[in-house]
């Protein structure tokens, strides 16, 4: 069985964990929640093993490199980072309701990577520009940051669900979602972590670009869009920390920020640029 095959099965694990989280939210039964956590954790373990297997496999065929070098590998890592970060939060907050929002994102990333005809899952050798120690640091920080922003995005969606049901508070699904102030706080924490990681990602990218392309900043569309994303989240942090914004407006900014993340990741491929190996 190839590594890509193993990873394609993980797609289903996340689909089933989504179903279990959904059942928990709709039926309000703790057992489904526990099952969901177990499936997700099992998925993450399998996912990690698939990644390691792919890494080892690349060395076996003589073109060894970390599995972080093209769109397929980045999607797989993105999903991995999302699930890892989510499970940490579930464990810290002892609340499973984020799961029903976040697992579909991981599922979609895995499904897109594994089943889209446009994505090549073969292990490919690195072209000269990618042969750098900065590859791992850059991709790792960027995608962990994206995962934190994905969680912030889910928390913002949950904020709107919670608010919509505010006067009655009877809807079971919404009842399991934590209070708006907790959501707001978590949203901020995720954005702060994501912002730090995105900054590290941009910096490691600049250091790398400086040695590969001779300039630390060249206004390549991906660079520019990562800056746009950075500016949006910087606006988020300033409006919260200095102007004291809370709640709805921050939730909107967080959603706008995540749309920028998605555009930086996927949309930019439609604009030509230096990052073309990520397509």
């Amino acid at each position, binding site marked *: 069985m190839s590594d890509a095959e193993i990873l394609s099965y993980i797609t289903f694990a996340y689909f089933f964990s989504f179903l279990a989280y959904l059942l928990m939210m709709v039926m309000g039964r703790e057992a489904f929640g526990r099952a969901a956590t177990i499936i997700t954790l099992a998925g993450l373990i399998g996912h990690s093993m698939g990644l390691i297997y792919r890494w080892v496999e690349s060395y076996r065929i003589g*073109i060894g490199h970390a599995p972080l070098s093209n769109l397929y590998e980045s999607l797989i890592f993105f999903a991995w980072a999302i699930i890892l970060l989510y499970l940490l939060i579930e464990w810290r907050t002892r609340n499973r309701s984020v799961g029903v929002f976040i697992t579909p994102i991981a599922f979609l990333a895995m499904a897109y990577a594994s089943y889209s005809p446009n994505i090549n899952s073969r292990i*490919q*050798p690195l*072209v*000269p*520009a990618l*042969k*750098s120690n900065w590859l791992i640091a850059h991709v790792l920080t960027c995608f962990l940051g994206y995962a934190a922003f994905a969680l912030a995005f889910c928390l913002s969606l949950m904020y709107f669900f919670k608010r919509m049901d505010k006067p009655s508070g009877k809807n079971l699904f919404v009842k399991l979602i934590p209070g708006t102030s907790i959501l707001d*706080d978590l949203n901020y924490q995720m954005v*702060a*972590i994501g*912002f*730090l990681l995105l*900054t*590290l990602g941009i*910096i490691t990218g*600049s*250091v*790398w670009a*400086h*040695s*590969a*392309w*001779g*300039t*630390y*900043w060249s*206004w390549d*569309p991906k660079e*520019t*869009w990562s*800056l*746009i994303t950075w*500016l*949006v989240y*910087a*606006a988020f942090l*300033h*409006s919260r*920390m*200095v*102007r004291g914004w809370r709640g709805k407006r921050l939730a909107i900014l967080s959603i706008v920020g995540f749309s920028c993340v998605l555009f930086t990741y996927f949309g*930019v491929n439609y*604009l*030509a640029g230096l990052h073309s190996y990520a397509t």
Partner: protein
Amino acid sequence: MPKKHDKEKGSPFWDFFTSVRLTIVILILLAVASVAGTLIPQREEAARIAHEMSPAMVQLFETLQLFDVYHSFWFRIIIAALGLNLLICSIDRFPSAWKRFKGSDGLERTAVFKDVPSHRIFSVSTGKEETSSRISQWFHRHFRRIRIKNGSQEDVLYAEKGRYSHFGVYLVHLSVIFILLGGMIGSFVGFEANVNIPEGETVDTVFLRRNGHPVELGFAVQCRSFTVEFYDNGAPKEYKSELIFLENGKPVLDTPVLVNHPVSFRGITFYQSSYGSMAGDKILLRISKDGSGKGDSLVEVKKGDSFPLPDQDGKFMVSDVRADFMRLGPAAQIQVQPPSGEPVLFWIFLNRDAIEKMVPGLFEKSPRFNYQAYRPYSFFMQKAETKYYTGLQVNRDPGVPFVWIGCIMMICGFFLTFFSSHRRVWVKVSEKDGNVKVRVVGRSNKNPVGMERELDSVTESLRNLTQ
């Protein structure tokens, strides 16, 4: 005292630049301008859409510098405004952060002991003095800046940590200014240039990327060799130039340059950026006299060298070699000097047969391309030597260290801002009717949840100390 700082605040200029609303507006403006820059083709690519637009439109775009957004005057004004906003906000707010950093004497704040929650009050079996001294020892191990006030009925202990977190934001702001400064230095003092060096050749001048103007390096660079390796699937594996740096004609440094492994010499950095192949100096010629193929002579000739014709009735030389002449592939220019009269010039092609098939009669009709222009001889190009040239990017950017210092400062600033907080703890040990009680309270500049957790653990530790 506070009046002193308020003085400048009256001016509308100061008020305008101290507003965080302005910061948010600038951030959004920068974001919108950047989006425009990624949607409108920039610089070299601008020509692609320019000829589909009306001249008036092109004129408008040019005036607004929309084809080079990131280097336009208005983009620079936004960035300058951001720098100014950061600087002025920081100057405006720094004194109060400094005050919080220095801290007033915590012992004076007795109001903190109002409404201490019951789980932060406990009785101890040890005496008042003993309790205070144990707590003070514990504080000395876990906190900074401990103050103690002993009284007859009660002792108050004050301790704090993480006061540097007040500076996190300023460090981040300063880092942005450093990065902008580094960028400015780079664009004013530095340059970005390119140069192609054929294998075996030496250059001492490079050409600016922006306008092609030559820049003298002050030393010379020779390309000893260029190699390119491919993977089995045809993807490139490695580009490598072996360079020799020469000063006053003497080699000083002999080093390879690869993608991701640039080389700096005298403050100028050389990056492997492209390569290409070009005609070498040597070609293999076949010279035929009667067209029968018998008695043909094969000679390897170097560009510029003069050779006698096989029958000594004149001389010829290869005056030019091109890797791709008029899109017809490799070609060489032959110059024949008859014993008397004007020289005869014509081009011969490596792909003669293919060209003949494509454009029948080309060679007969135009004397410029006629390989039989000097009868009775026919000249055939048998082999063309090709050699690589390496394309190097040549940069000088003294602003780079500022940018890296700024990046490091920014990360340190983030850690201070997001993950540390100024935590202050007060403990009161009071004695009433022989009964000793301890009260624990605390304040933090951010993360109240974390502070509660910290107070829980402080209370727990102190309780264990005094049992």
